[in-house]
């Protein structure tokens, strides 16, 4: 068994590192490609977090089983072969996971300038943030990779009979006295299904509407392109050509899909921007006071929030006259009423509080009527803006109720952020 491990481990390391380097290079190329940054990040993450580990697990060169043809000619005892197979599969998982961890730490270092973990991410939930933070993030991806790895190890390592029919000649399978349950074709289906299911699972894990549709199609398309191309063309042409063709399809396909879906994505992004702006507001609101809020308002150039921004800025910064401010606010409120734009209402509400014009739960109720889709974030904003202990307590109770009722990912994240910040506040007290 030791001789098998000595033979395979250095080669698995070499092989895995080689593909890891390829994956990093491909990701880097994607990042500098003219593709929309959200999608280049998504594809880069897709390659590193999914294609790389799947390759590591399923590549025949990393299987002891694929080499059984010659291993069985050696005097290595059969039990040792099976044990070595299991050990090597575990090693593959640990080694590739280590590389993924390193990737993640690099990303953390790159984005934060430190290895310090963000507050909202615990070590058991580490993952590489893909795309812009509000568009596409893989929570639990590292843990998820472990799950996939475990399943792969179970299927292909610990139960080598699953692999037997596919990789071994019948006689070799018999030598190990294995009963094969799965055909070679079926094994391929298992591998493909695992890859697709992995993608679906981690896509759903994010639970962001529209994300699944677009990215799933993109991911499935890329996977299908590579698989079908390799499998159909390799029998006709030299093996290098289908690989090149697959990469061509990969890049052209992904680029074209971005172009085609650009408008849809753009719209989607604007909607997301509006929602996540609120979260950003909350963060800055809490940490740096109202001045940051107004900087944010001033920086805004797009989206419907501008409707209120300009008016507010005029009212607050250009003219301190209370009457004019009130008049402006009244105009703003009227406009917000007719447009049913909750962001507009929020801006109005915050400004009211900032100017000390109004600060009561009446406004919160008013706000709630205006933003039925994002009640939770409205409530949260109201909570932060609450001027009195009573207001705060009332807003908190609204938050609690809404957090219980609203289970979608967006609102759950708002709640998580709220819980975290509240815990900090309590700790400070």
């Amino acid at each position, binding site marked *: 068994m030791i001789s098998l491990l000595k*033979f395979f481990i250095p080669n698995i390391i070499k*092989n895995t590192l080689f593909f890891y380097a390829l994956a990093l290079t491909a990701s880097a190329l994607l990042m500098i490609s003219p593709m929309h940054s959200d999608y280049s990040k998504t594809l880069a993450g897709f390659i590193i977090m999914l294609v790389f580990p799947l390759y590591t697990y399923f590549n025949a060169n990393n299987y002891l089983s694929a080499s059984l043809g*010659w291993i069985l*000619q*050696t*005097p290595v*005892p*059969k039990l040792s072969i099976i044990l070595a197979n299991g050990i090597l599969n575990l090693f593959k998982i640990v080694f590739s996971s280590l590389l993924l961890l390193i990737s993640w730490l690099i990303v953390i270092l790159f984005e934060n300038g430190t290895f310090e973990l963000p507050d909202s991410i615990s070590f058991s939930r580490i993952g590489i943030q893909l795309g812009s933070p509000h568009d596409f993030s893989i929570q639990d991806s590292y843990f998820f990779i472990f799950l996939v790895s475990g399943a792969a190890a179970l299927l292909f390592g610990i139960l080598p009979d699953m692999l037997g029919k596919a990789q071994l000649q019948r006689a070799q399978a018999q*030598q190990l006295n294995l009963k094969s349950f799965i055909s070679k074709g079926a094994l391929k289906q298992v591998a493909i299904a695992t890859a697709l299911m992995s993608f679906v699972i981690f896509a759903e894990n994010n639970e962001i509407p529209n994300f699944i549709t677009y990215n799933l199609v993109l991911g499935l398309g890329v996977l299908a392109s590579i698989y079908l191309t390799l499998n159909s063309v390799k029998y006709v042409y030299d093996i290098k050509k289908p690989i090149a063709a697959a990469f061509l399809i990969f890049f052209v396909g992904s680029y074209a899909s971005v172009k085609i879906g650009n408008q849809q994505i753009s719209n989607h992004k604007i909607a997301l921007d509006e929602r996540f702006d609120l979260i950003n507001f909350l963060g800055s609101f809490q940490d740096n006071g109202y001045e940051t809020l107004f900087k944010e308002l001033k920086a805004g150039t797009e989206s419907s929030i501008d409707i209120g921004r300009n008016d507010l800025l005029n009212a607050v910064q250009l003219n301190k006259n209370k009457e004019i401010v009130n008049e402006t606010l009244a105009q703003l409120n009227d406009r917000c009423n007719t447009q049913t734009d909750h962001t507009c209402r929020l801006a109005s509400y915050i400004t009211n509080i900032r100017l000390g014009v109004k600060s009561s739960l009446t406004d919160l109720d008013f706000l709630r009527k205006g933003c039925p889709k994002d009640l939770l974030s409205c409530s949260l904003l109201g909570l932060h803006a609450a001027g009195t202990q009573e207001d705060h307590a009332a807003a908190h109770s609204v938050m609690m109720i809404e957090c219980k009722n609203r289970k979608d990912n967006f609102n759950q994240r708002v709640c998580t952020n709220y819980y975290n910040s509240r815990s900090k506040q309590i700790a400070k007290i």
Partner: protein
Amino acid sequence: MKIIEAKNISKSFNDNPVLSKVSFAIEKGTFTALLGKNGSGKSTILNILMGEILLDKGDCLLFGRDLKSNPDDLKNKIAHVSEKIFFAYPMAISKFIPEYAKFFTSFDTKLFFQMAEDVKLDLGRTFGTYSRGQKMQILLMAALAQGAELLLVDEVTSVLDAFSRNYFIARLKEFTAKGGTVILTTNIVSEVQNFCTDVLFLSQNQIKFQTPLKSVGENFKKVRSLDGKHPLLKNQQCFLSGTNSDGSFSYIFPQNKVNEKDFPDLMQDKRGVTLEDLYIYHSQREHND
């Protein structure tokens, strides 16, 4: 000294019997040609000896040890060459073989590279990139260099070119001359006529006969005919065994079934019965049965 003793061994695949109560023995230092039609169980016997297939019934002693005891260490003494074996690893053969050698107690790496030089085979490529014949050369070289005492060669010589076939057959003869034992299966019977010492013929899941090559045609006779119209040639024990360069046909029959003196002198074939004649005779008998 017997290095293989098989007694009533049986093996079936999916209820299809391939070997049925087969018994045979192989002496040390012999070069045995294992013959039989496609699907007659030749490769199955080799795989059983390699421990790659488990016996359903019967006993088989290899170097005096029972195969049922799963003696993996015996693989230092046995080398197997088969198209099913694939050095499936992304490593040039020149690098792979020294690693492969470490699994064995007496692998002669120098001999391997010497043979590669003899047949002018470049070893700087991965196994999968070689032609079918080249792969067989590599496998034969690995088997010969393994330091084994028994070589099981499964239908590989037929894919070799004339030069390398002669080279490896000479190597195999040299191997037996030094006390090694070879069992070779082939469908090209004529190629083993000149170098094997024994013949083991499988037919209908059983050993039809096992005999030294020199006595293989003792009980058979051949006649030649231009038109095949002689009445005795219609005898059910008389089979067409081939055509001759003069356009005549050769027929083979067992002496105890057909009296050669009943044929005119002109039809007598003095060249003697070859292994191929015998193979055809038994194959046709099997077909008629």
